[in-house]
């Protein structure tokens, strides 16, 4: 009896978590635009989704933004993690404290503060406006702290003698870094990059405040469509995104378990 209650409770919670997503999926195949009744099965909304230039452009923007911001943030973040790791206690604490600001600050505050900065700067130099560049700068800014938080612990764990051992065996500092340190911290760099990529794809609030006329990513498009009410194209989009997420999670899991086998 108790076991049954426990299972029922878990099932109800999972139902609560998944029901809305499944409703979206099911209705993405519904002919009728209104929710209540089932008008028959169709792929029409998907076709319409792919014909929507605006959405496709936003998708492209999202991917370019995520790739660019993740790569740049990974580069800057890894370099600075290496520098921070070499710092003494006090400067290290100060830098990490500032680094944590974008993580702890509400996204909306980060968003408006960057917007103020950009517009302030544009007013000062007398030209320019919010757009792709400003979103990109914003995404890099909120991504770097996560890369640092991912790479720094790994650097701390490294045997301090490892770098010296490489020098000792005749490697120049550059060779020692690329042949010994980099291979050691690569997993942390990769997971930092994936995290940055995901955060960039998922972000709405900061993009919303730092974008300008005509430049949207998927989140911004979804928001503006959702504000106008229910739209079956969003259902189709959700279904596709959910499918992509599931496939990615599956692949990552399989890679992990394969790594464990070896």
């Amino acid at each position: 009896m108790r076991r049954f209650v426990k299972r029922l409770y878990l099932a109800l919670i999972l139902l609560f978590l998944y029901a809305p997503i499944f409703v979206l999926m099911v209705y993405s195949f519904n002919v009728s635009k209104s929710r209540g009744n089932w008008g028959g099965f169709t792929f029409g909304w998907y076709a319409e989704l792919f014909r929507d230039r605006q959405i496709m452009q936003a998708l492209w923007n999202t991917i370019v933004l995520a790739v660019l911001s993740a790569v740049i943030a990974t580069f800057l973040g890894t370099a600075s993690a290496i520098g921070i790791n070499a710092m003494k206690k006090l400067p290290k604490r100060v830098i990490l404290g500032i680094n944590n600001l974008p993580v702890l600050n509400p996204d909306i505050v980060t968003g408006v503060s960057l917007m103020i900065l950009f517009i302030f700067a544009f007013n000062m130099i007398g030209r320019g406006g919010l757009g792709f560049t400003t979103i990109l700068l914003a995404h890099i800014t909120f991504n770097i702290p996560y890369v640092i938080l991912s790479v720094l612990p790994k650097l701390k764990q490294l045997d301090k003698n490892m770098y010296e051992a490489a020098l000792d065996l005749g490697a120049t500092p550059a060779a020692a870094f690329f042949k010994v340190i980099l291979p050691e911290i690569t997993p942390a760099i990769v997971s930092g990059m994936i995290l940055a990529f995901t955060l960039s794809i998922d972000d709405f609030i900061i993009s919303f405040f730092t974008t300008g006329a005509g430049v949207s990513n998927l989140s911004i498009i979804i928001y503006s469509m959702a504000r106008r009410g229910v739209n079956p194209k969003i259902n189709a989009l959700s279904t596709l995104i959910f499918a992509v997420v599931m496939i990615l999670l599956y692949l990552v899991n399989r890679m992990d378990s394969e790594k464990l086998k070896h």
Partner: protein
Amino acid sequence: MAKRLIDLVNVTKKFNDVTVLHNISLYINKNEFLTLLGPSGCGKTTTLRIIAGFEYPTKGDLLFDGESILNLPPYKRRVNTVFQRYALFPHLNVADNIAFGLRIKKMRENVIKEKVEGMLKLVNLKGFEKRPVSSLSGGQQQRIAIARALVNEPEVLLLDEPLGALDLKLRKEMQIELKNMQQKLGITFVYVTHDQEEALTMSDTIAVMNNGVIGQIGAPEDIYNEPKNAFIADFIGESNIIEGIMREDYLAEFAGAKFKCVDAGFGQMSGVDVVIRPEDIKITNESEGQLKGTVLNTTFKGVHYEMLVQAAGFVWKIHSTKMSKPGENVGLFIGPDEIHIMKKDAKPEGEVLNEE
């Protein structure tokens, strides 16, 4: 006459105003096995790291073959290091770890393969080429670390407490193996340890360090038999150290009695430290001893017994193959040769940091 290979000239090293090496001078001969021995924090590892090139001295010079190498970066020095925690590269397998230095020198792969195999044979790990280093035991990792350094044919091998993480039995075996290797290859070894027994077993020369200064340099026998001060006497082997007075040359007074000794030149009635090794005190019948006492405790140590004897207000540690029972009244006899007199002020502050 042995050839001087490394010269440390008046080396001082400070870390943020903390002086860890005070004006040290030391030379190391070619093919010598020199051990830097001392408690933790005495500056022995810093000395080694200066030779390797990881630290730059605040003052002083470092000569290699008579030429200053202070401004030579570590990767250009003809020395290699075996680190305390081995510092093997976890992303490389055994063979690639050993080949690291050779690949940096861009040697041909078939030469590398040959050399790696030779090294693995030398350290008794044939057939381990493809193993990941994480799968090896501590002792095996240690051997790989040694092989990785030796394959570069350094003129000097620096070893920083390389056996510290191994268990006692393995440590003893490796001590002998290392010594054999050094003699076979004819390479100069500079060895850092806090383990006096290790130092006595392996070294040609021991430099005892404490608080950033070298207290004594010499052959193991000399350091053991003629320690220069009470700290060294206590650190190298076990000792009874007792305060005394030099009545006159060749006559010391301690424990309420006068003893003939072989030391002179301390000045009349000067306060001194008297050091006597536990194996140098003989237990006799109560009537025949210079001191009379009672056995407090007896422990069997394998080769000998260790007795603690209360006499003249002092507990004496005595090693003997003959057992005396606790409670027994005995006499103690100390011959003139066994008494080592040391100047009092030579005893450094805060010593006896022996970790064990």
